[in-house]
């Protein structure tokens, strides 16, 4: 019987261990595990929250100005939109609650969401979208103002043909059964807008700008040619689809056109002299005064010319003269004078001013000069071809000299002879002197 107490004590201790301590330890372990599971759950939720990545744009329908949200899920997790807050500059706040399925799948196409709010022209809108995980995204267009679309579409057209009109048209296009976006034009928000351009050189390059809201658009270019009565469509490029979620560029490279030179420069280039038909001089002392004449040389290139002219040299010269001791043509100061013109476009006209100085001889007879202007040389802007030898018609300028002469003013006893005239009593004749009698000459 000895040792029974020890056995009982051991049994009781064992019972305490197995009925109290071990369950307690298991309970603590389970509770701690529960806590850690919650920590892990929260940690996972936070990681998911940070992995969310939405891109949100706001735009409108061009038909009724209803606001739409364009949502793109750029992250790796599906996102559930719960609330959308539409605040306007007038202090109003509309809260759109997701009633249906607003789950945006990862890598899904852009999802349009109708917000049942109509945009007004005098208000700006700030739009925030909240997700179920607790992230809030603002629409990139902040604020959305239909009178001031935020994005610029740059349309570059290369190799436009000379003497053609180009109509560049941007139009809201159908997109997933919806038409979203608008283009600034004549009014604040249009579904289409066009720019008109006339190409005045060969292979001209131009860039056109359109301001628009996010959406899907088509860009088309129509090429028009003047048929003598109206502009007729000869080519159409596009339509090309452009999705606008940011500023964008689209380039139309039209076929290259080999430039044509001017086939008949004498018909395309006009040159003429604008000068007085006669000039007058009078005796000053024993010699005749030098005469100065302003001469205009008019040059022009017809609008139908194929290319512009560069580095033109225009000459004015005297080809014949009579009764002159000499002459000078200014601004050069010699017997002939050249003026350089940098550029002459098709349809352009210019007048070049020269000054002609004539030194008359001392004899009483009148004289003349015959002038001629010419295109000495010019270079075609597109082809580099040299054009020359186009002459104006010869223009004569008569030089008239005033000379003194006597004439009979009146005869007879009734003659009232002025004091500066001579009265010859014997013949009853009144003889006067004048110096306004001109002596001129003209070429044969």
């Amino acid at each position, binding site marked *: 019987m000895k040792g029974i107490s020890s056995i009982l004590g051991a049994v*009781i201790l064992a019972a*305490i261990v197995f009925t109290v301590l071990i369950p307690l330890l298991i309970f603590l372990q389970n509770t701690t595990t529960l806590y850690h599971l*919650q920590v892990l759950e929260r940690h996972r939720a936070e990681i998911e929250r940070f992995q969310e990545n939405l891109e949100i744009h706001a735009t409108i329908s061009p038909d009724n100005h209803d606001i739409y949200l364009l949502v793109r899920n750029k992250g790796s997790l599906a996102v559930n939109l719960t609330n959308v807050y539409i*605040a306007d500059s007038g202090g109003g706040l509309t809260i759109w609650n997701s009633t249906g399925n607003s789950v945006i799948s990862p890598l899904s196409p852009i999802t349009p969401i109708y917000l049942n709010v109509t945009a007004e022209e005098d208000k700006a809108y700030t739009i925030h979208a*909240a997700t179920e995980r607790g992230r809030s995204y603002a629409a990139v267009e902040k604020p959305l103002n239909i009178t001031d679309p935020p994005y610029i579409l740059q349309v570059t057209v290369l190799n436009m043909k000379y003497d053609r009109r180009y109509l560049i048209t941007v139009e809201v296009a159908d997109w997933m059964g919806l038409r979203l976006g608008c283009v600034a034009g004549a009014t604040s928000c249009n579904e289409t807008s066009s720019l008109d351009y006339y190409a005045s050189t060969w292979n001209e390059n131009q860039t056109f700008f359109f301001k628009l809201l996010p959406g899907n658009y088509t860009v088309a270019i129509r090429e028009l040619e003047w048929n003598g009565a109206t502009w007729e469509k000869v080519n159409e490029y596009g339509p090309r689809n452009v999705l606008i979620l940011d500023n964008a560029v689209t380039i139309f490279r039209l076929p290259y056109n080999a430039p044509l030179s001017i086939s008949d420069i004498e018909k395309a280039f006009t040159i003429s002299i604008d000068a007085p038909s006669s000039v007058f001089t009078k005796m000053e002392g024993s010699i005749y005064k030098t005469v100065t004449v302003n001469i205009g040389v008019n040059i022009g290139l017809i609008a139908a010319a194929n290319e512009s002219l560069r580095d033109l040299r225009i000459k004015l010269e005297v080809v014949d003269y009579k009764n002159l001791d000499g002459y000078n043509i200014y601004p050069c100061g010699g017997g002939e004078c050249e003026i350089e013109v940098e550029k002459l476009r098709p349809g352009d006209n210019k007048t070049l001013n020269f000054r002609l100085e004539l030194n008359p001889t001392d004899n009483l007879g009148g004289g003349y000069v015959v002038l001629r202007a010419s295109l000495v040389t010019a270079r075609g802007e597109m082809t580099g071809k040299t054009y020359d030898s186009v002459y104006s018609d010869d223009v004569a300028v008569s030089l008239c000299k005033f000379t003194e002469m006597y004439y009979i003013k009146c005869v007879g006893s009734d003659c009232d002879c002025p004091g500066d005239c001579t009265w010859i009593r014997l013949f009853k004749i009144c003889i006067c002197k004048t110096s306004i009698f001109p002596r001129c000459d003209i070429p044969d």
Partner: protein
Amino acid sequence: MWGKGRGAISEVVASVILASVTVCLGLMLWGLATGWSFSSSLEFTRETDESIAQIQSSISVDLGYMSNGRCILYVRNVGDTPVKIMGVELYPEGGGGPMRPNFDATDCIERGDVGVLTIDDDTYCSSDSDKAVKVVIIYSAERTSNDPGRYLRFPYLLAPANLSRGGSG
């Protein structure tokens, strides 16, 4: 045990007595251990539950803006337990604070719901002030709202421009 030839209790009786004493002491020890274990478990359970409640509480701000001397925040409960907003502190741009302005909030925000928190402060909640203000929302799980030691803080930067987007906390 006792001297030889004297009257003595038998070995059996002695053993029974000793065993009885051992059993009594053992039962007493078992009872104490059980009681201690039970009370410790309760305390540990309560502590763990409060910690879990703290972990499960989480809020975010959907939208915040200033209007007519009021900061208005749409607070979303993104946690797994109802939460209560217990207080608000303001830290103005350029230093200073915390200010403890008057505020009005939804009593209890259920899971997934949005409550409106309105803070009245003419100085720092004016959109014309051209100064941002950091709003610290002091919140708690509903079941730990009587224990300030369990309160959590959510900071949110409110931009001065009317209806502009603030930074999330």
